[in-house]
């Protein structure tokens, strides 16, 4: 150790790590928590007019039923049309064309009309409309001609009329964003909103608020998670797997640790083999055990060779959940026991040889030594290994997918992935993730408490 006097050097040295963890650990962690409880599309503010700078008259929450009482189109700046991705999807836009051609009175007229009135006949290579003819008004009595307006807007002043089927040239194109004046079906609240936030039903009169622009804290994602039909089976299976795997794992790991600690010949060879699964990908282990338990896998071949069965037995089907669970337990035992062993061996090496030799001298049998000396002294290591293993066991994922297709038997991490990947629901996926986090923290606290309580009970 150096520099007992105050120095800034160590702070410079740890700064990159701190910054990195803040940016790519703490910040996303916080965002993840937020995703689970905060809906950033919860409510839609209604404005007093069909413009973005209108005053807010009230808010409607996502999904409320509405009727549409009026519509209006606002011209968009060209930049908005190109740049803003949001306009590309779900936006009700309308094109208006500034056309010029021969009016009904034989004079040259020029003005704005909506795209619905033009049959496009001439287009540039990039899709720009250059000209066309005025559509006839089929089956309509009344004036067959089309109004041309001063502005690309239904309410703008009429500056001329043009007859049907007249050829016109298009001088300019404008994209309008359509605004709706909506009335809340329940409260009667009335206001304007851009069409892209409103889903219109087929009658063109009623609809619902598709999504909002203002966020609010909500429990709806958590409720959605709890109500999900796979939720209860997922957490039950997760806990059951932990309950089955951990005890077996500790017995096996203890056996492995004692074997290593016995300093056999080829001890380092045994250590290498015992540690092999430690670095193995859980997906690879899933595949490995799938190949053992699959229909024409190793287990069937073996059982048939020794005459236990005489036809292939299917272990990994929807009807054999017990076998799938068994395979998962075996795979996890195979994969994750090594790390427990390594922690236990580290603990064993810290136990003074003299203590054990003294016990042996006084006639303590092997099991007595393990029970009364090794295990109590190993308790801190066991505690660390327990916490580590439990936290990792909550994240069991690839093994389950490999062995059950992620469907027949499902666990929490699996559901997180399904919500994100198949159902595209980030918020509910985050709710699952937060649930796993809370379970991990709870189990860590539980183990720390349990060990402390035991220490307090013991008099010495």
């Amino acid at each position, binding site marked *: *150790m150096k520099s007992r006097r105050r120095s800034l050097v*160590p702070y410079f040295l740890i700064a990159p790590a701190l910054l990195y963890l803040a940016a790519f650990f703490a910040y996303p962690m916080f965002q993840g928590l937020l995703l689970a409880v905060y809906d950033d599309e919860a409510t839609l503010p209604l404005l007093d007019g069909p413009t973005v700078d209108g005053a807010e008259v009230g808010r409607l929450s996502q999904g409320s039923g509405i009727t549409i009482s009026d519509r209006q189109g606002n011209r968009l700046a060209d930049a908005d049309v190109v740049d803003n991705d949001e306009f590309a999807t779900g936006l009700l836009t309308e094109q208006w064309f500034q056309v010029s051609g021969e009016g009904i009175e034989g004079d040259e007229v020029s003005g704005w009309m909506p795209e619905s009135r033009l049959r496009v006949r001439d287009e540039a290579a990039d899709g720009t409309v250059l000209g066309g003819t005025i559509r006839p008004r089929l089956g309509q009595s009344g004036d067959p001609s089309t109004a041309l307006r001063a502005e690309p807007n239904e309410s703008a002043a009429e500056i001329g009329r043009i007859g049907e089927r007249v050829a016109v040239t298009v001088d300019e194109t404008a994209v309008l964003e359509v605004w709706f004046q909506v009335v809340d079906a329940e409260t009667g609240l009335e206001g304007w909103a851009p069409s892209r936030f409103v889903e219109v039903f087929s009658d063109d009169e009623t609809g619902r608020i598709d999504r909002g622009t203002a966020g609010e804290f909500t429990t709806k994602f958590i409720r959605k998670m709890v109500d999900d039909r796979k939720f209860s089976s997922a957490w039950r299976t997760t806990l059951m797997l932990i309950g089955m795997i951990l005890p077996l794992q500790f017995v096996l790991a203890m056996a492995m640790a004692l074997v290593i600690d016995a300093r056999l010949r080829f001890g380092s060879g045994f250590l290498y083999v015992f540690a092999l699964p430690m670095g193995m990908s859980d*997906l690879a282990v899933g*595949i*490995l055990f799938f190949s053992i338990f699959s229909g024409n896998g190793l287990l069937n071949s073996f059982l*048939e060779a020794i005459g236990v069965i005489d036809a292939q037995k299917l272990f990994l089907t929807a009807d054999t959940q017990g076998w799938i669970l068994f395979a998962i337990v075996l795979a996890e035992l195979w994969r994750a026991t090594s790390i427990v062993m390594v*922690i236990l061996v580290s603990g064993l090496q810290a136990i003074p040889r003299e203590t054990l030799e003294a016990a042996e001298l006084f006639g303590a049998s092997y099991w007595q030594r393990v029970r009364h000396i090794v295990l109590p002294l190993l308790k801190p290591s066991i505690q660390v290994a327990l916490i580590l293993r439990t936290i990792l066991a909550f994240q069991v994922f690839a093994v389950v997918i490999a062995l059950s297709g992620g469907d027949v038997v499902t666990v929490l991490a699996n559901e997180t992935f399904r919500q994100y990947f198949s159902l595209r629901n980030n918020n509910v996926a985050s709710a699952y993730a937060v649930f796993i986090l809370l379970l991990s923290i709870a189990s860590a606290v539980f183990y720390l408490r349990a060990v402390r309580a035991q220490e307090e009970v013991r008099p010495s």
Partner: protein
Amino acid sequence: MSTPAKSSAKSPRETSSGTSRETAVLPPLDDPSVVAEHRRMKRRANRGRSFTYVAAIAIALWIIIPIFFVFSMAFTTEETVRSYPKNFLPFVPFSTETMRFFLGSEGVLKGLLNSVLVALITLVLSTIIAVPAGYAISRYVFPGRELFRISVLAVRAFPIVVLSIPLAVLFIRTGLFDSIWSLSLMHTALALPTTILVVSSVFASVPYELEEAGQVFGATPVQSFRHIVVPLVLPGIAASGLFTFVLSWNEVFAASVLTLDNRTLPALVLTSLANASPAFQFAGGFFLMVPSIIFTFFIRKYLFNMWGQVSK
């Protein structure tokens, strides 16, 4: 280690563990009862040793047989892979057909390349960031040192799943989604805590006195670091780099969440698992396993240092 209690002879001291403490006066060493007891203990110890060997071999077989099975299936013909019942003789017939089929499948070569790149970027990034931090923890005493250590430890305890979803949302928003860079950033965040702790334990194993001795003989602090510390810590840092590489190579949840077209190998294998042929699965399993087998071989010296330190 020795044998289970059932083989123990009924020596007076064995009958009850409590009474041994009351034996105040020990008989002389040449007493026949002591000699007999000594012989019994020796026999018991021998029997115990052979029992331990049996246990060791049994556990070793339990670990090796499945690995061996996958390896032999990865190097045989597709027909053998599909056949039933399975051949118990390994590598019969030996063929690279399964391998060729796997490597020829769509996206596999790209996935392999992506995996290697992501793992290498992760290795470089996390080493660059972790080495100074690990050095600071092991060499300096400064206010906040314990806090830093504890928080780094705590980071390890957080589940990957919690991190992946918000990072995916973040990366989509910033246009980094589905690239090997974003995945490397995520993997670095996962690897960093362990790497920092391992590196600090590696530095701690090189006494500062060595550095001081170098300075006594006229080296500048930088020189003595360069010529004394660096050669001594290099193997340890290489081991921690290997660990990072394997962690990234194996990681499947974040890889599946954060990529779409630029899948790494595990993400590719996972998402095509449902409709993959057995040959694809075995060869995929083989490729996923190889780095870890090499890794374990090289780090076995550091195994207890690494995890012993990390688990404290």
